[in-house]
């Protein structure tokens, strides 16, 4: 039987994986089609109806300025999607290159890169982000930079481990004896064998990235008002938490669903494609 069909069937039989896939598709669709789906303009004020609970007109109520929370949540998904797409792909790319260099290059370079990975990975992200944003001022671009820097080590370490396992394989030695340089070996032979687990890690990394953005925006260090993001909705909701519980509830649920969706999807992909990875987590 075609191995891909077998994998697909394995995946289809994984209930959690399919549930995750549905949540992920909803995440993408609601963000991409937010302008079509939103019942109201997310910036439209309606002061008389401010801090209202759910009504027929406003599904999950309004915020302190009478803006429709549901529409704002939909638009907030666009910020999350942007951060996730750019942040994860850029850090994956940098981590992949650095990790392969660490695994294939000389020992001292490996040690230096490992030290870099471990230092960055273990340092409290939020503390560092606070210090950085203090100097540069809040912006989506800065959040993106923080997300990328803190995500690189995860990919780098994984790419390094896989490269190390491959560097003495027979087909690599054969390629080297045919006169292939390091770039050719890495790009042509190691890369295709290393990329799979990294893509699975990327799926699991999306919620982490989205949470960092929401956390920073919640602290007022991310996107600037009036742009809606799940974090800024939570921030504005926190300010009026004694008057209305709806914004902090509505702003938080998509965060939880996104995390669940990508976690389930990532775990299912891992179980189907690379059961060996399971150990490390």
């Amino acid at each position, binding site marked *: 039987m075609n191995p891909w069909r077998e994998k697909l069937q394995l995946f289809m039989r994984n209930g959690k994986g399919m549930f995750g896939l549905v949540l992920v598709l909803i995440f993408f669709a609601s963000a991409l089609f937010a302008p079509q789906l939103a019942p109201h303009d997310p910036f439209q004020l309606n002061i008389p109806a401010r801090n209202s609970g759910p009504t027929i007109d406003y599904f999950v109520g309004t915020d302190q300025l009478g803006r429709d929370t549901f529409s704002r949540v939909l638009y907030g998904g666009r910020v999350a999607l942007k951060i996730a797409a750019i942040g994860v792909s850029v850090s994956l790319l940098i981590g992949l290159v650095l990790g392969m260099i660490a695994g294939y290059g000389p020992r001292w370079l490996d040690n230096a890169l490992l030290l870099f990975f471990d230092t960055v990975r273990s340092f409290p992200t939020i503390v560092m982000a606070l210090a950085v944003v203090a100097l540069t001022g809040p912006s989506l671009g800065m959040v993106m930079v923080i997300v990328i820097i803190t995500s690189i080590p995860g990919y780098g370490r994984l790419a390094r481990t896989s490269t190390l396992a491959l560097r003495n394989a027979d087909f690599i030695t054969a390629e080297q004896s045919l006169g292939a340089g390091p770039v050719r070996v890495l790009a042509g032979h190691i890369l295709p064998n290393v990329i799979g687990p990294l893509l699975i890690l990327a799926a699991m990394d999306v919620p982490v990235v989205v949470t960092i953005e*929401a956390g920073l925006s919640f602290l007022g260090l991310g996107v600037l008002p009036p742009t809606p993001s799940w974090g800024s909705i939570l921030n504005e909701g926190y300010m009026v938490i004694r008057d209305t519980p709806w914004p902090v509830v509505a702003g938080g649920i998509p965060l939880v669903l996104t995390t669940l969706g990508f*976690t389930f999807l990532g775990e299912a992909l891992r179980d189907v494609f690379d059961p060996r990875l399971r150990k490390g987590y």
Partner: protein
Amino acid sequence: MLAYLIKRLLLGVVIVFAALLTVFCLLHLMPGDPVSIALGTRATPEIQAQYAEKMHLNDPLIIQFLIFAGQALTGDLGRDVFSNRAVSVMVFEQLPYTAILALSSITWAILVGIPLGCLSAIRPNSLLDRILGLISVGTIAIPSFLVSIWALLLFAITLRWLPVIGAGEIGDPLDQAAHLILPSFAVGLGWVGYIARLVRASMLEVMNENYVRAAWAFGLKSNTVIYRYALKVAVLPTITMIGIGFGHLLSGTVFAEIIFARPGIGKLIFDMVMSRNFPVVQGAVMVTAAMYVITTLVADLMVAWLDPRVRESL
């Protein structure tokens, strides 16, 4: 063992140094003039010149870094721009609050997470295992700052069971404990799931090891085998992970401190960031880095001490 200890200590020094350098570079290489960043644009030229002199801003960067690093090594982290208080005193005043919060959070998470992981591992793929698995993923899926906000909403505002803000009256342990419950719940919840999953995975692995099979073969009671033999080794990765995850734990306490308006390092850094009081930010970030290094070192040494296999290999 000694060689290992020395290597780890050196690595720790390098990490603190790297953090020091990063903070320094951020403060000095960012576009814009550090004086006007620190004092704002409305400061008079005299005040600006005075500040530049005090902070050694007219010296070359290398000299500035050496002065900064040398002072940091002797415990002098600089002075607050506004109140002129020593940064080290300000940071160490806040440290106990953060330490208590972090410790209590991780303690309850361990006390709940390890038994959950064990229960799951004893009968893998049973109904109980599946339910516990879902609970674990559920607790991981809610970011800790969201747990803080929702816990605040539910228990403090809607149900009014617990106090909302602050750390409680000094000298009143009961009041302080009541103020600790919600933040500690919020910071620890995600860890329950992490620990349960990790213990489950490593229990399943350990249960197949020869020494556990030998224990069964000797006819030891199942509780003895599971708890005295298997679990003892299966918890080791958890200790390592708590060491590595310290940064993550600290991020959780930062949010909890801000949301519950509780004193602590996170709140201090946040407030100082908001008032652009950079020497304090710099000092607090440094202390955080040092705390991280010490925690990971202690965690690794604990694993080495508990696991004879690791101890032998050092």
